């Protein structure tokens, strides 16, 4: 089962615990890479979403991108511009379709959803089952030392394979 530290942040009435991970986004067309940004792991979201501000910094020309209409939890509709982005986290890189929209709340500028994040084939062997998945395992929230993280990832993966074999 996935294990990773929750991030505790201030809320109105009580503290908020959020499954945030730090990811870097790379737009291959401009070769611009963001610094690690906290991203919300959200299994309830169908797609990966990102605020327009980050997309503009990456140099994406939004007028040319295909749009898709989304429906939020309150029933409101908003549109997002699709773009293929290279995403770095936990010392690895993944290609992922992101939808950039003005409507993404600033509190959570990057949302990692089912299509693009949870359905990554290369990630499937890193968690036992998609049905009870909350977040990818072997994850360190800060991608500060990638070599160290990769070493940790390899160790944990070997441990996981060993446990699986014993079962």
């Amino acid at each position, binding site marked *: 089962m996935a*294990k*990773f*530290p*929750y*991030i*505790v*942040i*201030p*809320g*109105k*009435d*009580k*503290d*908020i*615990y*959020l499954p*945030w991970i*730090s990811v*870097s986004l790379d737009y291959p067309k401009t070769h611009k*890479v*963001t*610094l*690690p*940004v*906290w991203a*919300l792991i*959200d299994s*309830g*979201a*169908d*797609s990966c*979403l990102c*605020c327009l*501000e*980050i997309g*503009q*910094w990456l140099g994406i020309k939004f007028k040319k991108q295909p749009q*898709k*209409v*989304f*429906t*939020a*939890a*309150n029933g409101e509709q908003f549109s*997002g511009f699709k773009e293929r982005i290279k995403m770095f986290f936990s010392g690895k890189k993944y290609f992922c379709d992101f*939808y950039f929209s003005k409507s993404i*709340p*600033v*509190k*959570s*500028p990057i*949302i990692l*959803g089912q299509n693009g994040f949870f359905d990554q084939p290369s990630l499937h062997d890193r968690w036992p089952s998609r049905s009870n998945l909350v977040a990818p395992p072997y994850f360190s*929230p*800060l991608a*500060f030392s990638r070599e160290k993280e990769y070493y940790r990832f390899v160790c944990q993966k070997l441990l996981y394979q060993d446990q699986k074999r014993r079962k």
Partner: protein
Amino acid sequence: MKTINLKKTLAKYQSGWVAINKNFKVVGHAKNFRTLADRYELKHKIVLMPASSDYSGLVTRFHG
């Protein structure tokens, strides 16, 4: 697994974006993402996050 508590770290910042170092301390603040992202490089080993006095009330269910 221990949680990472950013409550005290973010207490002073109510809007904009903040840069947090590996000791979970705020090392930079700006009104928008662009300003902060242009100020630092990957070698600085920081993480960017939006600042808000209240992170609660976020309900996500994006169906597309």
